[in-house]
């Protein structure tokens, strides 16, 4: 520690591991993330065309309704279908299959934790693209007030609960089958993701039964809200997403983590300023090292925007993968101000 100066323009006599770390921490983060998101988008929206099959337990919106393009399925669809089985089967012979299904999903999930949201999810990527267009047009973005934030933050848990309870209701015979896969019906991904593969068949309202009518109308409404919301608010849908809530509830043993060293934090709020989800704790909480909140999509914009060495870190199985550095911060902000 003593005598080792870390600052821009430090002497070049550094060990290789050091050089790799410094290069990683000084990366042009926005560009890096952009291209990673493009790559995953292509995989998850068109991968099926190349014959890729990653199974039906993916922890991200690789939408089922994108029948040909998807390289595997978003777990929520098969989960809702499984839960809608008659209870005798569900809690009987099919129980093991349900549990192993969940197990596979869990294993996929804990690798990236909520990083699936920030780097992989196609719906998330689409929102980021809409945001980029808005920025290009010079429009300002909207923020929730603290009170509104509090009032709306439980919606994702409500949607998660309904997503699990309604299928169970179907399985018990209390709810009509027309209500099957209720979340999929209202998820904007159902309409939007297949469109990217040229499939617009979901852009209809189904009049065949009252339940279907209600659900598909609701789906049209949520999609419309999604499109308008994403235009004015960064990552609009993620705040309400039941997959996000589901992830958070399972996130304790995850390998990929967002860690904060409160002692180094100057409470400058730079991280909060760039956070798409308006998460206050990232700036204000200086006691808790596990700083990933339920809304966090682990996009790591906060780490890239923090000017204090080592205050925020993304770690994988305890190893630091990306950390906030003064030098990296300066490089990124210089680029922003001069281009």
């Amino acid at each position, binding site marked *: 520690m003593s005598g080792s100066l870390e600052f821009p*323009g430090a002497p070049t006599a550094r060990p290789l591991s050091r050089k790799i770390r410094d290069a990683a921490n000084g990366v042009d983060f926005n560009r890096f993330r952009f291209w990673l998101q493009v790559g995953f988008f292509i995989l998850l929206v068109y991968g099926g065309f190349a014959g890729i099959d990653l199974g039906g337990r993916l922890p991200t919106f690789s939408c089922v309704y994108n029948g040909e393009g998807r390289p595997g399925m978003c777990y929520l669809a098969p989960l809702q279908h499984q839960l809608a089985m008659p209870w005798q089967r569900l809690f009987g012979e099919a129980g093991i299959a349900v549990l192993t299904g969940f197990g596979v999903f869990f294993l996929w999930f804990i690798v990236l934790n909520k990083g699936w949201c920030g780097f992989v999810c196609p719906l998330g990527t689409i929102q980021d693209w809409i945001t980029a267009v808005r920025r290009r047009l010079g429009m300002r973005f909207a923020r929730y*007030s603290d009170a509104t934030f509090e009032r709306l933050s439980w919606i994702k848990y409500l949607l998660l609960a309904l997503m699990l309870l309604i299928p169970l209701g179907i399985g018990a015979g209390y709810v009509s089958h027309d209500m099957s896969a209720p979340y999929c019906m209202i998820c904007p991904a159902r309409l939007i993701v297949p469109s990217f593969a040229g499939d617009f068949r979901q852009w209809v309202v189904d009049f065949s039964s009252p339940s279907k009518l209600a659900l598909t109308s609701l789906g049209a409404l949520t999609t419309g809200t999604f499109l308008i919301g994403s235009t004015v608010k960064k990552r609009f849908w993620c705040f309400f997403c039941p997959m996000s809530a589901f992830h958070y509830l399972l996130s304790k043993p995850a390998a990929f983590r967002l860690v904060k060293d409160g002692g180094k934090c100057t409470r400058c*709020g730079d991280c909060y300023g760039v956070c798409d989800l308006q998460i206050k704790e990232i700036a*204000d909480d200086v006691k808790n090292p596990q700083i990933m909140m339920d809304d966090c999509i682990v996009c790591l914009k906060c780490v890239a925007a923090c000017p204090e060495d080592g205050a925020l870190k993304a770690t994988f199985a305890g190893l630091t993968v990306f950390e906030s550095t003064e030098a990296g911060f300066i490089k990124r902000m210089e680029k922003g101000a001069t281009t």
Partner: protein
Amino acid sequence: MNGPFKPAKPILAAAAPAPASTVVAKSNEPLPFGKTKQAREAEKALNHIVDDFDDNPKAMAYFYDLFRRVYCRGESIERDGALIGTTCIQAPEELVYALGATPVRLCNGSYHYDQIGAEFMPAKSCSLVKATLGMLTSEDPVPRIGKMNLVVNPTTCDQKKKASALMQEMGHEVFDLELPNVKESEASRVYWRRSVREFAEALRKVTGKRLTRKNLKAALARTQRAEKAFRVMDGFRKASPSVFLGKDAFLVVNAYFFDDLDRWCEAVEMLNVELQQRHDTAVRAAQKKAPRIVFTGSPPIFPNLKLPLLIERAGGVVVSDETCSANRMLYDMTAVDEWLVNDMVDSLADKYLKPCTCPIFTKNDDRRRRLLELVSKFQADGVVYQAFAGCQVYEMEQRSVARTLNDAGIPMLYVETDYSPDDEGQLSTRVEAFLESIKTRKRMRQ
């Protein structure tokens, strides 16, 4: 127990009455500025800064020369465009630069102006406020920055707040920049963001220009350069023993108050190159055993660098500080997500408010944490806490800071002082006793 520098010039000799001036002025003509008491005060301070220490970095000559020209010879430093005076670092200078104006920080460190201010300020007032007001009420004050178009006065401590009306009476155009006294709440963030926008509006009226993406980005790029240069310079003080002395660091940032921004950046960048060379060739500014001190509290402003100088002349080295005339001016950097005017203005506003460790806020958690982090980062042995007599906020925070440092096993010296030069003997006793106790403690540990 003196350091590597030449033995300190006898302090008491300076307290002897100055010899009568041999220049006999004609009855109506004022003395040239260089011969005034005010210039002599600045010259004395500058001589201590330069001559009491061996081997000053060559690049510091720019700064020594700057202060000599401005404070000792009274050279004019007028600049083109609107001139906006600020009384606190909370006034976002990026907005000023963006609109083609020049900000200049008015906080004053001269005992001469302190005495003038004392004529109309209450007896128990803060020296800094008295000096600033004393300067503003004087005709042709030094530094000679020229006529100001606007003075922006953030509503911080009581005395500065009330100074607003006094400044208006003196004939200055004053803008009250509304700063909240609580910084944790959402309400204060929203309030402050709005205040900053109103400030931008006031600037528009003065300069006739609007904020655009282009000019604001350019302004941010310029201040970023200054912040980066500062951080690099500051980084050299982490080395043990330090490559760079506190008295020079204070002088460099004090120059930022009034120097041309781009020229200042260039000078600091050259200084950094030299400091890098010194670091690589193991040239050190202080002895290995010199106690490393973090300086906190009421800001030392040239020529009142009395206490940091005393510490370094007594063999200590000020490796870091938590004051608004040095570290806090340039340390915090702005992160912008979307480089559009609104996001930039909001990000700027947040940067000024959220990390601020000024004692005018209700809670001082961030200040205490900052001090602990600085002590750790710069491997300091102790903290010297300066409070100007009359500065209630710093005086009141002393206890909680002392408790926090005590609990962490870090020794702290609390010193109450003002701008008058006659307490140097008392201060040196305290400072020396403090440094001696640190050396003893270090020796015991080995």
